[in-house]
């Protein structure tokens, strides 16, 4: 049933008796053209675009838990395309364009809210770096505005301007950036993919990859073997573990990053805000909770939890930036496992195994990439050749030196 205000009203009168499951729960078939491992946003989007853009619908998405149980369901919901380096800018801008039409595309309200993403700067050098980035964005056709101190102050009068350790000098604003409802993105893609005939198979952990003569022929799962002509990996923090099943080592470390939400309050901040002199960013959800986060915990981890020093570091940044936050309360904090690549940028590429494709290295920014990641990965899998939008996200770029290092931190993942 198509979702609309009309059907909602109609169903309200009928006691909502007719709503069908948003996606089926099929048994896995013996064979698919393509198996996507990972039922997060990226995997589901890949499946959706395989069907929509490439006419491939004999596709399964296999997920070890419930769809969206990884980082798709535990991020801070930010979408933006305010990148410096051309490879990233163009890719994330394509993602932004897909976000802007996603609700009508999926017939699902994923609540894309373009309320603006503002990065604050606290020194002349930082402002110049923002100018460099903003100009790069503009050259790539992305909106960017450099705000001075008074413009920031007019926009967000409640921040600490007069007693700050690191005074606010200005900021880089991308008005088209904002947030989207993370769970809805998963469900929207799942429902839309399902409607195009794709099998979404939950509680189906992949336990092995079937490889013969350098070519993949299927996956072993907790629910039995599944044959596949092509297999795409979109498993975020578990990328190294899956790759190891194919005998591959990746330029990736799995790290934990924490996120936080406060109790709901009436609207207080109407944009996504990042502190440039500490590790803190914040936005307010439609339900009223302030959603915030900061830096990684900084060590390899597969445990979905963080530790206190990072909690303190993040909250200190928050209260330093915005002293009025002191009396609001954290309701919940949690950790996600992210696939930190060695240069901070993603990988969407073929692997040395024929028919095995890799979508990984999203660091802490995978959510905003969801549509373009799925779109590009679908293109790569369907055509077996990269689309120009992600051609730079190669697996061999490290050995060749074509790193895409936005922060200039080099090969130390926890610093990106």
């Amino acid at each position, binding site marked *: 049933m198509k979702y609309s205000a009309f059907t909602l009203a109609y169903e309200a009168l009928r006691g909502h008796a007719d709503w069908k499951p948003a996606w089926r729960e099929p048994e896995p078939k013996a064979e698919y053209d393509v198996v996507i491992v990972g039922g997060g946003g990226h995997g589901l989007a890949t499946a959706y675009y395989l069907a929509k853009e490439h006419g491939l619908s004999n596709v399964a998405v296999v997920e070890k838990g419930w769809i969206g149980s990884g980082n798709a369901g535990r991020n801070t919901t930010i979408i933006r395309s305010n990148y410096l380096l051309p490879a990233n800018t163009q890719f994330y801008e394509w993602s932004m364009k897909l976000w802007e039409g996603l609700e009508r595309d999926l017939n699902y309200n994923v609540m894309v809210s373009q309320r603006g993403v503002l990065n604050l700067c606290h020194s002349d050098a930082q402002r110049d770096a923002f100018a460099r980035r903003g100009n790069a964005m503009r050259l790539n056709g992305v909106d960017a505005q450099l705000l001075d101190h008074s413009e920031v102050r007019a926009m967000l009068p409640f921040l600490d301007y007069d007693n700050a350790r690191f005074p606010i000098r200005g900021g880089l604003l991308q008005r088209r950036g904002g947030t989207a409802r993370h769970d809805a993105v998963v469900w929207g893609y799942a429902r839309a993919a399902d409607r195009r005939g794709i099998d979404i198979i939950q509680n189906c952990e992949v336990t092995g990859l079937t490889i013969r003569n350098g070519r993949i022929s299927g996956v072993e799962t907790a629910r039995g073997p599944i044959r596949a002509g092509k297999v795409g990996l979109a498993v975020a923090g578990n990328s*190294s*573990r899956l790759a190891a099943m194919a005998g591959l*080592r990746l*330029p990736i*470390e799995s790290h934990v990053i924490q996120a936080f939400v406060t109790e709901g309050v009436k609207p207080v901040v109407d944009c996504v805000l990042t502190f440039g002199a500490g590790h803190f960013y914040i936005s307010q959800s439609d339900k009223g909770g302030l959603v915030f986060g900061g830096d990684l915990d900084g060590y*390899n*981890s597969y445990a979905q939890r963080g530790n206190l020093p990072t909690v303190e570091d993040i909250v200190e940044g928050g209260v330093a930036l915005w002293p009025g936050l002191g009396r609001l309360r954290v309701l919940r904090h949690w950790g996600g496992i992210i696939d930190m690549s060695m240069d901070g940028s993603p990988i969407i590429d073929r692997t040395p195994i024929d028919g095995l494709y890799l979508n990984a290295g999203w660091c802490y920014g995978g959510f905003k990439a969801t549509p373009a990641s799925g779109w590009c990965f679908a293109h790569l899998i369907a055509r077996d050749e990269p689309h120009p939008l992600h051609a730079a996200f190669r697996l061999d770029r490290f*050995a060749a030196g074509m790193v895409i290092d936005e922060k200039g931190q080099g*090969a130390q993942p926890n610093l990106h």
Partner: protein
Amino acid sequence: MRIICPYCGERGNEEFSYLGDASLLRPDPAGAGAMHAFADYVYLRDNPRGSHREFWYHAAGCRSWLIVTRNTSTHDITRVEFACDVAAARMASFEDEG
């Protein structure tokens, strides 16, 4: 997390900085295929879920580089060694072999 520094005793992880996989050995820069070996050394990681030997630097303490054996799934720490001791032992074993 709490790391038992062999010099300073048990401390919170905020006193340390992290460098990652300690099983990597800097390749011989004069060796054949050094470029390839260095690319692997600098960029590729096992990234295991489970036991992981990793470098931590006690930046706010004794400034020792440590090798910590820690389970990345449970965060349990089973061993902490001075990195220089491990390096010395490795060098000694090379010399023994000859």
